[in-house]
């Protein structure tokens, strides 16, 4: 049970960063931390005691395997996370070139 609590603690650290920081790069970092805690939660759900990695050996079928379904979901989610982080970075670099700052408050004031 402690592992689940620690995993949610990581999520709340990311949430805290998103709410309190004003720097765009810091917000991107916090979002990626929240993403990572979600991946960890899925991997924790799929774990089974004394299980082996889900790769079938045809000669020896009577093994306990770890659940492959959450791993599949995380596998696609990681690559999508890379794509969204890239998109976020593109937006941030474009904003920095225009306003010369990472601070969202200043960008709000300078807009117009």
């Amino acid at each position, binding site marked *: 049970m402690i592992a689940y609590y620690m995993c949610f603690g990581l999520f709340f650290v990311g949430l805290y960063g998103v709410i309190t920081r004003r720097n765009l790069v810091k917000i991107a970092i916090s979002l990626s931390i929240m993403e990572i805690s979600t991946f960890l939660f899925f991997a924790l759900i799929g774990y089974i005691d004394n299980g082996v*990695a889900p790769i079938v050996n*045809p000669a020896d079928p009577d093994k306990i395997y770890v659940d492959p379904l959450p791993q599949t979901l995380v*596998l696609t989610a990681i690559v999508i996370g*890379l794509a969204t982080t890239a998109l976020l*970075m*593109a937006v941030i670099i474009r904003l920095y070139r225009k306003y010369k700052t990472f601070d969202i408050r200043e960008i709000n004031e300078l807009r117009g």
Partner: protein
Amino acid sequence: MKGMTIIVKKTAQLIAGMIFMYGIYVIVHGHLTPGGGFAGGVIMAGSLILVILSHGTDFFSLVKEEMGTTIVESAATICVILIATAGFLFGTKVFFNNFLPKGNVGDLVSAGVLPLYNIFVGIEVAASVFIIFLSLIIFKEESPK
């Protein structure tokens, strides 16, 4: 964009091909060992990024390379959808049908169309990660400080 020092350049010359080869190995053996299209594709993109970062290139070859990579990526995505549609046409009418013979579990040529999916998704992921990196560099070259 400027390259790095001799140490990095020469090491990259020796290593980059081997990293690319390892990416191909991870993709092709994706249905037997850990790995698959996603992991191998990102490894292949990493070897290309290593060459660009260490050697450095001029602006025009970067633009040319980016156009080529965009075409490769789109072609790979279309191939994934084409294979899925081919499954629809053969045998039972199900999208993503595995219509090729399955073979023995554990052989290199087995599992029907799964290795083909692996290969095309690998090419697509490699190309898209490489494009993202290239567009970041091109943008930096395009707008001087």
